[in-house]
């Protein structure tokens, strides 16, 4: 699972009101190089919750993103590289996503988070 996916999902347990962002527990992170698409990154910048993204990247062991970002930074190639790397090249392979409100763990195995709910959570 890449951080772009992490940025769009909340904890889905019934009754949870502040389910975003899911906390990341990383046991194994893999990196896969993909070509950078600057236009895509610029478009996504509007949609991303930057704070959650930067925190998530740190949980994945990548500490190169600024705490806060504004659209003027998109002019910098170095910034785009880091943003690209964190958003699309880091994969959470083994670990867990944790509901920020209830502490419920959603395990991640072979890169696939299991977000199926138990009967009493739906």
């Amino acid at each position, binding site marked *: *699972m890449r951080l772009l996916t992490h940025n769009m999902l909340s904890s889905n347990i019934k009754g949870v009101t502040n389910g975003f962002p899911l906390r990341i527990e990383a046991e194994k992170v893999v990196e896969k190089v993909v070509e950078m698409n600057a236009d895509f990154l610029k478009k996504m910048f509007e949609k991303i919750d930057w704070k959650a993204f930067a925190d998530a990247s740190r949980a994945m062991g990548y500490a190169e993103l600024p705490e806060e970002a504004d659209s003027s930074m998109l002019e910098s190639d170095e910034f785009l590289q880091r943003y690209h790397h964190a958003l699309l090249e880091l994969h959470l392979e083994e670990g867990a996503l944790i509901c920020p409100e209830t502490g419920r763990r959603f395990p991640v195995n072979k890169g696939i988070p299991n977000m199926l709910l138990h009967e009493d959570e739906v």
Partner: protein
Amino acid sequence: MKLKQLEGLLGGLQQFPRPKVELEQYPTGPHIASRMLYTAENSFDDVSNKVVADFGCGCGTLGVAAALLGAEHVVGFDVDPESLEIASLNAEALELDMDFIQSNVMDLQWRGRVVDTVIMNPPFGTRKKGADMDFLSVALKVASEAVYSLHKTSTRDHVKRAALRDFNASNAEVLCELRYDVPQLYKFHKKKEVDIAVDLWRFVPASL
């Protein structure tokens, strides 16, 4: 990529080894899947450089097709872990980076509308009545640009009414009618394959 080439690559994907009837697991054949995504890309520009979600992705055929056509980020969702494992192997075999999430698409909570396009071949609802309409309702809340889906032609009027009236779609259009060979998954089917008419739909969600 040419249509023929896309169809060829999809034809090489591994499909459900043991289809689970209660989940309506039948793959979208390479003929239909390639046309569905090819049209989305070439007639509507809804695939390349987009964030695409594949609802009920099964072994990943539709999502793989989107990734092959240049989607920037593809996420497949399915309840069934076995299918997801195959889907992820299918993606790997073609050197595509795709994400997969094991979940019931009805139960997900989304932050904002990050997804541009939803593609799906939902359960037709032969097992769980209304399943295709439930999928559509969620898809129209998640996508910001378009939803592509297959529904039985016999339900055309109903689909259109529900999409526009109940799910707030701003547009609902049948792009073409296709013949779908649903394999003999059901004991009560006498023939080996059942050829049914399905519509390929494009829906536009209400603008925010």
